[in-house]
């Protein structure tokens, strides 16, 4: 019998895998993809709660999370393209202008 904690544990696994990806990888595009992975794991949490509490609000919030994620990806990829124009690399270690 699959119940709420199963979905929450799976969502926690996906979220922490996204965190490990953001902290470990050096390619800015892969870091961005791991951020999307984290957003999706949170979506799964919301929808699991929406079903197990009988409340539609969880799904409404996921709707808005998807809208915000789409806008964020558009602007974020524009920023990455501009960074590539200046630096000719996507390695985050070379984006150190603010390093003291």
């Amino acid at each position, binding site marked *: *019998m*699959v*119940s*709420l*904690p*199963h*979905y929450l*544990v*799976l969502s*926690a*696994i*996906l*979220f*922490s*895998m*996204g*965190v*490990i*990806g953001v902290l*470990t990888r*050096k390619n800015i*595009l*892969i870091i*961005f*993809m*791991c951020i*999307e*992975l984290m957003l*999706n794991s949170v979506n*799964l949490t919301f*929808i*699991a709660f*929406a*079903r*197990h*509490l*009988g409340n*539609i609000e969880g*799904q*409404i919030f*996921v*709707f*808005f999370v*998807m*809208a*915000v*994620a789409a*806008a964020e*990806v*558009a*602007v974020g*990829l*524009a920023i*990455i*393209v*501009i960074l590539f124009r200046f630096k000719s*690399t*996507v*390695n985050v*270690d070379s984006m150190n202008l603010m390093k003291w």
Partner: protein
Amino acid sequence: MEAILFWIFAVTAIVSALVVILAKNPITSALGLIVTFFVLAGYYVLLSAQFLAAVQVIVYAGAIMVLFLFVIMLLNLQRLPEMFPQSRTGLLLGVVVGGILFLLALKALTGISAAGSPSQVDVDMGSSANLGTRLFTTYFLPFEIASVLLLSAIIGAVVLIRRPPDADQSPDA
């Protein structure tokens, strides 16, 4: 039936998420992420969120990942020599922090007593009619603000990408 599907989807999701964070080639990561999105759409159907499953496939796998793949292809990343080699302590610290976060999340989430039993929830909860009714009555203001947000994202992306006009333009005769 739900249990079999849950475990099949769970193994597929974890394996494809591992591909996302471990692959050397960003295209391989993108394909792993697309598989994760499809598996999550399957989960949403299992959890009575049919409309969101369709939106997930259309928006995430169909628009966002296509945008990612276009940018990866346009940047045309060559196999450049590694200027900054991956430090082993950095890798270890990243994995340790992720592990600690996972343990914290586990402690927080499994302490929840599974409240309402899902058998009382009807399968029409996530239908587009139900979701649309709530979106256009109770949550109308966030809906309109989301449309303004998308407009500002479009304008922002276009303004960012636009190259500044060249300084040495020959004047019209």
